[in-house]
């Protein structure tokens, strides 16, 4: 095993990885940009090194600087987390060249899956079903012609893409030119590459993905599926494992295909093969994420496998400790991503200072979070600031527990999508498990407030004003720890009846 691991990331995932290293007895190195000086991952690690200013291109994306820090600190392995450099083959190669273990797949596997168009070809050759569509990057004119042939709705995707960037669904031929232009712009900005391709839209479809583990000795297993159909603009918001739509037979079929996909590119370490699943049980390869996923905890909670620790073991050359038949799913897990977005204002990202924080806990609740009181939520990075994961004996218990945990979650000072999650947990469609990737599109966020809320707010504001006025009038510092005197005398009388 390694001696010291550098985590080339920030936020909740950096902390997740640091914890795994700590539990393995490995020394840890954090890196940080200017606004992250007091971030939890910096305080959590054994050592911390400054990278540069806020923009990712000046800090978390600086391969040269990160390798330099690893050498200076004497780290013998680097974990990239997700996002940033996690799917950057050049970074994986740079680690290897510097004699440092990259905790992830080999660069060639990242490259093979990174070009979405090439990946489609490789998968087709390996007998993995793919979504019908254009098999190469196309000009706008070719795209329009192909779209008319495949039929609408149709999906535009960035060839170099991932994370929903540059993706568009188009419903009518008239809208295609504008959508192509917008998708290319976004792809160019995100990846420096404006190539796109088209895919038939499978609709309604569920997003179901298979978690894969592959060691360096040719052993590949899968840890069952996750359903991630609750997405907004191709950003997942809610994930669960197992999927309400997958039975044992389908799980076995999808798992076998996912293992085949991983083998086809010589994959090692943890990875995820994403599929679209149609109502008839047909599934189509979407892409493979050659890294740890945001939603990996739901799989951990139903299988009991610690995926990050397995990543460490695999990267250190260990053999998988399980065979496929050892993997059993128990109960049900759900994850809600907590983002700093305003669900009442079109999910607009919001910044601000966290003035108050109370995280849920208790049975079956797991929080993975970057939040702390006093934290400045920066608009420089992804708006996801935490994840809330629950486990229940059944899906029904998991939903009730998630609802309970969401209601316990207090984050003051910034707006979050917690109210959206509460509404989803209360919705008949979600409870019934009737999910597809357009769930959020159809879902109307209710602006109605609970009936007693206004009344309570009014009384609260009046009483606080009253106390402030009294304090100001008599110039006496009232000890906040003493009990309030605002008690209606009739209450005591009522009790004496």
């Amino acid at each position: 095993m390694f001696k010291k691991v550098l985590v080339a990331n920030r936020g909740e995932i950096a902390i997740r990885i640091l914890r795994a290293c700590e539990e393995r007895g490995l020394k840890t190195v954090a890196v940080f940009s200017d606004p992250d000086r007091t971030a939890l991952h910096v305080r959590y690690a054994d050592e911390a090194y400054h990278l540069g200013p806020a923009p990712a291109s000046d800090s978390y994306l600086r391969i040269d600087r990160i390798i330099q820090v690893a050498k200076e600190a004497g780290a013998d392995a680097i974990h990239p987390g997700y996002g940033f450099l996690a799917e950057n083959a050049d970074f994986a190669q740079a680690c290897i060249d510097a004699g440092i273990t990259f905790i992830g797949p080999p660069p060639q596997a990242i490259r093979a899956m990174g070009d979405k168009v090439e990946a489609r070809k490789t998968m087709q050759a390996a007998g993995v079903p793919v979504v019908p569509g254009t098999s190469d990057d196309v000009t706008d004119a070719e795209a329009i012609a192909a779209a008319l042939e495949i039929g609408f709705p149709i999906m535009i995707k960035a060839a170099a893409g991932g994370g929903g960037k540059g993706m568009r669904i188009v419903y009518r031929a008239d809208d295609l030119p504008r959508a192509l232009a917008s998708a290319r712009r976004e792809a160019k900005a995100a990846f420096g590459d404006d190539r796109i391709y088209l895919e038939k839209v499978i609709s309604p479809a569920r997003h179901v993905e298979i978690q894969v583990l592959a060691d360096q000795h040719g052993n590949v297993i899968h840890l069952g599926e996750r359903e991630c159909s609750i997405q907004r603009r191709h950003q997942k918001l809610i994930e669960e494992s197992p999927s309400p739509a997958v039975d044992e037979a389908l799980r076995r079929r999808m798992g076998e295909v996912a293992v085949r996909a991983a083998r086809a590119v010589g994959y090692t370490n943890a990875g995820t093969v994403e599929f679209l699943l149609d109502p008839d049980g047909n599934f189509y390869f979407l892409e493979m994420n050659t890294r740890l996923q945001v939603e990996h905890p739901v799989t951990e909670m139903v299988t009991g496998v610690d995926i990050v620790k397995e990543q460490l073991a695999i990267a250190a050359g260990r053999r998988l400790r399980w065979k496929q038949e050892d993997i059993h799913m128990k109960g049900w897990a759900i994850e809600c991503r907590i983002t700093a977005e305003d669900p009442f204002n079109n999910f607009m990202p919001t910044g601000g200072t966290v003035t108050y924080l109370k995280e849920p806990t208790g049975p079956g609740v797991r929080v993975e979070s970057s939040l702390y009181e006093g934290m400045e939520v920066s608009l420089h990075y992804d708006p996801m600031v935490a994840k809330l994961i629950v486990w229940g004996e059944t899906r029904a218990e998991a939903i009730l527990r998630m609802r309970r945990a969401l209601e316990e979650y207090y984050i003051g000072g910034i707006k979050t999508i917690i109210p959206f999650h509460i509404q989803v947990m209360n919705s008949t469609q979600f409870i019934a498990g009737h999910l597809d990737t357009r769930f959020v599109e159809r879902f109307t966020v209710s602006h109605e407030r609970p009936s007693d809320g206004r009344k309570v707010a009014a009384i609260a504001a009046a009483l606080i004003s009253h106390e402030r006025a009294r304090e100001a009038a008599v110039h006496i510092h009232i000890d906040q720890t003493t009990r309030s005197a605002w008690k209606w005398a009739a209450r005591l009388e009522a009790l004496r009846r």
Partner: protein
Amino acid sequence: MKYFVYVDDEEFVVEIDETGNIALDGEPVDVDLARIPGQPVYSLLLEHRSYEFAAEEVRDGYAILLQGEQYIARVEDEYRRRLMGGRARPAPTTSDMNITAPIPGRIVKVEVREGDEVADGQPLVILEAMKMENEIRAPRGGTVQRVHVEPGQSVEQGEVLITLG
């Protein structure tokens, strides 16, 4: 002391007498408020129902974070009310409305021109922020009085983009 409180355009009258008795809209209510020491957080028992909320001072009142919802409660006491010569509740806005940038970013596209009639929810501007394109939509119907920005321009949070009439 009588307090006039406005929440979501609803008016409440809260009266607190010298012995601490409290009445809401003339009806006596059983209220017990306690602050969590050192925190902006309070526990309120209203007829034994338990509420926990965080309070932050804002202009003329408090922002109350309760059960995941934020309520802006504007408070006016009876002296102030008399001084103002009656209800000081703000009249509903029918005048011009400035649409501002909710986050800093770069203008990708302006979807309307001055003089356009727009419907509630219609896209006005596309703002790129956090590597995503965000559509800024009209919060109500009206006429575009003025367009303050152009594509390619960087804007700060709160900067006016469009004035709706």
